[in-house]
């Protein structure tokens, strides 16, 4: 159950994973230690699924050339700026973008978690270009109750989900602090779930948590204890984001050379791989 980040990625994330989901939202609760290990080991991913709003985790994986396709509704850094590696990859068509919306991601994960074959979306969502841009992910049906035309989205069933939580107990029950965004759904929908945590839970601590802040251990494949492992993104309940650290990334990652420098300076060169 408890592995180092090196062991977890090596054993549980096969090269060429079909659908890899990475949790957190904006520059909060990105499971960066796990993501850095993916970069170190150069684990390629056929499709990356982000939460409705991704930032550093996604930009780093894309910049490292590890992602063939990204299914996302937002990759950026809010007030700090656009996502440099994502921009470069998308603008050079080096990556295929499966443009989704919040509804397609969240309802799609709900469908994946619950074994629903697909999910019908609220009327009006078909008016955006999201569904036209990615006909592979969306279909139009006739509502069998009303006869209306209805947009439906595919379920999202990650092969692997990487998420962050505040603490875990010895059986892999984990709990979240602050907001947990789409992280529980990402875990519930995935075959393999690796949870990066700040610390071990104290005795009785998980039992004292409310139902919805907890992910029971039978949904968790492995736990990686990585204190301060979300930095430079925030970990709700533990620390805020490191704005200078994020700005340093954004500055360097403006160029491919700068990105490589960032990867090397931050311990993500392949030479940093440990057994």
């Amino acid at each position, binding site marked *: 159950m408890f592995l180092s980040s090196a062991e977890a990625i090596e054993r549980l994330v096969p090269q060429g994973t079909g659908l890899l989901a990475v949790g957190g939202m904006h520059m909060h609760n990105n499971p960066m230690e796990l993501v850095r290990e993916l970069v170190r080991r150069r684990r390629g991913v056929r499709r990356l699924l982000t939460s409705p709003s991704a930032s550093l985790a996604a930009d780093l994986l894309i910049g490292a050339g590890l992602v063939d396709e990204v299914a996302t509704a937002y990759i950026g850094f809010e*007030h700090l700026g656009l996502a440099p590696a994502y921009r470069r990859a998308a603008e050079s068509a080096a990556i295929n973008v499966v443009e989704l919306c919040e509804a397609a991601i969240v309802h799609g994960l709900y469908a994946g978690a619950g074994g629903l074959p697909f999910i019908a979306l609220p009327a009006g969502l078909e008016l955006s270009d999201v569904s036209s841009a990615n006909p592979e992910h969306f279909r139009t049906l006739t509502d069998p109750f009303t006869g209306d035309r209805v947009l439906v989205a595919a379920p999202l069933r990650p092969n692997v989900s990487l998420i962050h939580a505040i603490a875990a107990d010895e059986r892999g029950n984990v709990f979240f602090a602050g*907001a947990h965004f789409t992280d529980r759904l990402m875990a519930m929908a995935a075959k393999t779930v690796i949870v990066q945590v700040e610390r071990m839970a104290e005795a009785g601590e998980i039992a004292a948590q409310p139902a919805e802040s907890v992910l029971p251990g039978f949904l968790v494949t492995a736990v990686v204890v990585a204190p301060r492992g979300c930095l430079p993104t925030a970990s709700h309940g533990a620390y805020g984001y490191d704005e200078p650290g994020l700005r340093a990334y954004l500055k360097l990652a403006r160029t491919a050379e700068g990105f490589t420098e960032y990867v090397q300076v931050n311990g993500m060169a392949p030479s940093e791989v440990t057994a």
Partner: protein
Amino acid sequence: MSTAVEVEYSTGELMAAVMARHLRPGEVAIMGAVSALPQAACRLAQLTSAPGLWFIAGGSGAVNPHLDPLVASSCDERLLDADAVMTLPDVILVEGRGDLIDIFFAGGLQIDAHGNCNLGPIGPWRHPTLRGPGGVGLPFVSRAGRVVIYSMSHDRRTFVEHVDFVSGPGFAAGSVALHGGGPALIVTPLCTMDFDSDTHLARLATLHPGVTLAQVLESTGFAPIVPPKLETTPVPTPDQLAILRGLDPTGLLRGGA
């Protein structure tokens, strides 16, 4: 004889005051990424002209965050200091139901004459000249009571005749009806616009103090309807400014959030 005191205010503060005046008591508003400005507007409205207003700081799930202080990121943990908090999946349900959200604050790298917003690709979809971050929940504007569009940039790159990609649908040229009320207000650093009820085209409403009509037309990539008489946008009152500055000690609205 008037003894008006000249009060200095930032563009952000002016825009927050304009947006606050658009909100009514008891309404429910929602906003997404990079939303310190509409959050400040909502809190200002709660404390002045729209008591009982509800606002949901999208990604965080916070309902009526106390903004003590205003923060830059829409998912900052400090937003959870709020009247109540929802999960993000529950926020998506509330957005989808279609009869709960009165005001949806939207934005775009491109905004067009029908109030369509684009936060996705600029240029060809598969090979964009500028890959925007993405629209997150913007498709849900189609189900909101009114859409308030705001932008910190007012130039021809932002305000275009037709967006290249519809992230948040405005009024369509064709016959497709929005399920909600559609775009109602645009607030920029230069002016405010509303929408003509017949043509569903953007119409200039007020010019900010010191801004000329020519300046707006030159900075806008579409031709807004220009009404015979253009009012000047009311400046924030000293009370409004005091409230905004109380929320915003670090000056997010003054440095340009």
